Every structure is written in C-alpha cells, then in structure tokens.
C-alpha cells in the first residue's frame, strides 16, 4: 500500500521537466545532440537520487528516533473518556481504564513509523509540507516547528476555498502542499477539520494524529495517539522536525555527491 501511494506521489511530485522526449528534452529544445545527451545524463542522475531511497524500507533510520517507552512517558496512550470514543477508533483502542480509553501503543509505533517515513520521503523530494492544528494551546508550537524545519503551518481559522479554490484565493500560479500533517484532526467545535476533506478532494495525502474521539477514515496515514497533552504534542513536533531536517540534509548530501561525481 505504501509503495503504491509512494508511486502515486512520485507522479504528482514529478516536475514537467523530468518528462523525457526526443530532442525536446524537459520542455527545452536543444541545438545539438550532445547537449541533449548531457541533459539526459543529468536526468538519469536526478532519477537515481530520487528513486534510491525507495529501495530500502527504513532509509532514513527513523525507528531510532523513538521507542514505545518514549511514547508511554509522553502519555501518548491516554485517550478521551469512553463516552467520547469514535466507532472507527475501536481497532486502535485496548479498552478503558477508569473510564479513560487506552490506545494500543504497538499499533501506534507501526503507524507513526509509516507516517514519519512517508514525511521523510516527501521532504527528501522537495515537497511542500503543511502542518495544521486548530488547538490554540499548541498553535505557537506548531508554527515554530514549521518555521524551524523550513516548511509551512496553518493554525488559524481555515478559510473555505484555501485548497479547493486556490488560484483565486492566492494567485493563479500557486503550488499546493504535497503533504498535510494534522497535529489534531478536530477543530474548536469538536468537528472534523475541513482540511481533511479538502485534501482528500485535491488528492493531497494526509498524516494525522487521531485521538480516540476522531474519525480516521479520510486520513492517508492515521497515527492513533493523544493530542491533548503538551508533552505528547511537543514530542510529535520534535519527531516531525527531526524527520524533515534529516531528509533535507540527506538530499543536500546526495546533491553534493552528484555534483562531485559529475564534475570529477
């Protein structure tokens, strides 16, 4: 499933210039065959850089970033009360203890690993990541996280056509985010955030931290976990920041190596 989604995303992320054609390579016409050949060699190198991380399951070694014990200490396993439980969250929840739902951390670890891996690959390929959270408690934290890893954040009132009516809301040539990460899938009135539905409409993959009162169905990579405790939110922000930075550093390394090998 992950590989299928990744190939879909690669097609989405592929820039027009990577489409090869005879002599009009990458949308540019070349005066001589030699120039076209050189450009083809560049394309091959770029393709190799792009596709090489896909050959290994955990290329960015993200499983080292966290363990079940860290998640437990950050109180990620604490859900809401039993009465608030969403029907579709039952597979991820052990049950309730003193009326409080307990989330299965082993499933959380798998889901979180998959989500972070996907985020890393998107960041590696230069995709735009948008961090969304409508919780006022953590709005500043999420915005700071986005700023520190060079990505984008939206923790304010979500205007209707931001994704679906983008050319009019912004400017005609705007590029939409390639991945949306929800640190909390509910808005301030305990309804599902509009961004989830809009992202699904615009074919944008989503990663979301789903608590026991959230609906995980429309989210591509749900991560069952607590979204109310400050410790848990800080941990998620730290993890995503480290993932994105790692992926970008790796990409810069590969570009440098390619530059050295091309010149040498």
């Amino acid at each position, binding site marked *: 499933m992950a590989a299928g989604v990744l190939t879909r995303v690669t097609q989405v992320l592929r820039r027009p210039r990577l489409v090869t054609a005879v002599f009009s390579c990458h949308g540019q016409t070349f005066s001589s065959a030699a120039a076209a050949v050189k450009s083809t060699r560049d394309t091959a190198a770029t393709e190799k850089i792009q596709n090489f991380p896909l050959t290994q399951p955990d290329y960015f070694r993200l499983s080292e970033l966290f363990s079940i014990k860290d998640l437990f200490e950050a109180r990620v396993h604490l859900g809401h009360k039993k009465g608030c439980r969403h029907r579709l969250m039952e597979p991820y929840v052990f049950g309730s203890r003193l009326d409080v739902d307990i989330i299965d951390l082993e499933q959380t670890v798998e889901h979180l690993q998959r989500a972070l891996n996907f985020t890393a690959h998107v960041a590696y390929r*230069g995709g*735009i990541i*948008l961090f969304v959270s409508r919780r006022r408690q953590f709005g500043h934290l999420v915005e700071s996280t986005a700023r520190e890893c060079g*990505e*984008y*954040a939206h923790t*304010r009132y979500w205007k209707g056509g*931001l994704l679906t009516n983008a050319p009019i809301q*912004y400017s005609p*040539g705007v590029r939409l985010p390639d991945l949306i990460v929800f640190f909390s899938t509910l808005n301030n009135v305990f309804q599902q955030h509009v961004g989830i539905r809009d992202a699904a409409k615009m074919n944008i993959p989503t990663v979301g931290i789903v608590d026991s009162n959230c609906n995980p169905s429309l989210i591509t990579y749900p991560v069952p976990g607590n979204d109310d405790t400050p410790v848990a939110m800080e941990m998620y922000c730290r993890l995503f920041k480290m993932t994105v930075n790692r992926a970008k550093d790796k990409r810069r390394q590969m570009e440098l190596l390619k530059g050295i090998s091309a010149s040498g």
Partner: protein
Amino acid sequence: MAASSCRGVRSILRKYGSCGKSLCVSRSKTAPQLPVRQICLSSSLWKKNLAAAGPQKFTQEFINKQVEEFEVGKRHLANMMGEDPETFTQEDIDRSIAYLFPSGLFDKRARPIMKHPEQIFPKQTAVQWDAEGRPFHFLFYTGKQSYYSLLHDLYEKILAIERHQDKMRSKGLFTSDTKQIMLTGSRWLLKEEMEEHLVENVSDQDYTRLIQLMEKLLSMPYCSLEEEFVLKFRRQLEVQSSKQEIPVIQYDPQGVAFSVSDGRRKSAKASITLRDSGSGNVTINGKNYLRHFPILQDREQLLFPLHFVGMLGRFDIEGSVEGSGHSAQAGALRLAISRALLSFVSEGQVEKMRQAGLLTADPRIKERKKPGQEGARRKFTWKKR
C-alpha cells in the same frame, strides 16, 4: 492537421464575424459534413468585464522603468531650471512644476505632479514563491501571512517576557514597579494605517484581536523590554490647542492694546476690534448693542466669552456685522470676540475655551428642500383616501 487548421480558421471567423451572417467555409473532404448553424455573436460576449479584473496590477519591470524615467526626468528638470541636478530635492521639483505648469484647478490633487513612482503607484505584493514554487513565508497558506506572522511574533514576545519574569522570580528580584512604557499622548494605529503597514486587508475582528494582544503585552510588569516594538504601532496625538491661530496684539497711538478678528455663522460676517480700555461698552455697526440686538439672548451670546474668561468689564468691543438674521449675527460676533480674546488670555484658558466650544465655528446651515416633500423634513399632508 488540415482539418484542425480549418477548424481554427472557422472558429476565428465565427468569433469575429458580425451578428446574423451565416458563414460558408469550404471544408476539406476529410472533415464530416456538419450543419452550419447561425451563432449569434453580440459584442457583449467579448467585451472585457473591467469591474471583475480588480485594481490594476503593475509588474516590477514596469515600476523599475518608471523609477528610471523619474530619475532622468528629475535631472532634465534641474537643468531646465538652471539648478544643480545632484542637489535637486522633492520641494524643488514641486516648485519647478508649479512654475512651469501653472494650474488654476481648485483640487491640489488634480494639478500636475512629479513624484517618485513609489508614492504614486500603490504598494503591491510581489510574487510570493521561488522558482520551485515553494512560498517564501512559512505562513503563506493561511492567506493573511503578514497579519498572522505579526500575531506569532507578538505571542513570542509575550512568552519571552513571561520567561524573564519567572527568572527574576526564581532569583527573588521580582518587582512590580518597573519602568513602564510612556503611552500618554499617543494612540494605536488605525485600521487603515495597519492595512498600509501590513500591505494586506485587515478585517475589524482581526484589528480588535491585534489591539487586545498588544494591550495584554502592555499589562505585564516587564513590558518595557519590548518598548521599541510597541512604539512602532503607536502614533503621537497632535495637541489641538497648539494649532489655534491667535491674533496679534496691536497698540493704539494712545498705548491701548487692541486685537482684531473675524467670525462667521450661516451667511453673517462679523469683524470685531477688542480694546483693553477698561470700560465694557459694546458698539455694533456704529450704534449701541442694545439698539441693534433688542432681544436679551443675542446680547447674552455676545458677552458670554468675556463672562467665561472672567474679564467682563475690562474690554471695549467695537464691531461690524452684515448678513443673515439676528441670531446668526450674534453667533458670528461671539466667535469673533472669542478669537480676539485669545491674545489676552493664558494657554490653559485657551484650551478651556476650546473645550467649551467658543472657538469652533458652528457648521450648521439651512438644510435643502427635497423633492416629494414640502420642506427639508416636512412631508405633504397624508390623505387616507
């Protein structure tokens, strides 16, 4: 290829063809026999909806070209006026343009101007993303990036001050009486000024929220750490009384001090000479004010400024008035007396007179009659049937 070009030609002919003409275009044998329908084409179809386009947008190259032309034109103008092109300031430009292109137009903004393009063309936001398509600002996708980034910075500063407070508390040095920011005599930026500052539309609720956050910052004891930041959003209030024009005190050959001033109300014009002779006589148009204003209210209006300042018996009033009715003439004279009195009175008294409304010209005039009504407000008699 031939069919597509034929189709293209046909579409062009259809687009620019006049209404009602049927077009017979020779078709190649490869295209199927389609019935030619008369398509009604009115000019309203290809007229541009100018209102929907929004305010005119200027490209950066256009503005750069305008700036170059301005600089070159400035040098030409300096040479024309025989002055040094290097030290030609904006005031010199304005002077020269007023000299070379004298205009009798009333509105100053309609006269010819030569200013730097930055002051003429409205500030526009440049393209917000780089070659890859990645936006520059991390809050671009919110839609209001400058406003939200300002809120973000504000909150950051509030957190920093709280951390500083906690540090002081832990060291035991926390005091409530710290240096406070001087806020008297200044006001917050207005909504329009904020929009100009952020180059973005700011709604009423957004503006209120921003001011609330600023006030929260100012309510903290150690807010003086961010004084510079806060003062950027404050504007000095102009002291109203300093703008008052006080008439000059002149001296008689006998050494008596007097001042002259005018006043107007509705269509009455009055001119007053206030003499410091110490008698308290009032003469209007050559006769005693009792003869000119038989009604008590008018005479009260005349003497009210002197009564307010407490100098009733000190001055001699000599005035001339024309136009309008007795009440308007009294009001005009009162304004003239108050203005003349300013030169004999202290600064504090001037402010008191201003606040009492003695120095404000009454702007009320006769309201116009409207069609379908008998007068300005009176409607025609309503008849049930």
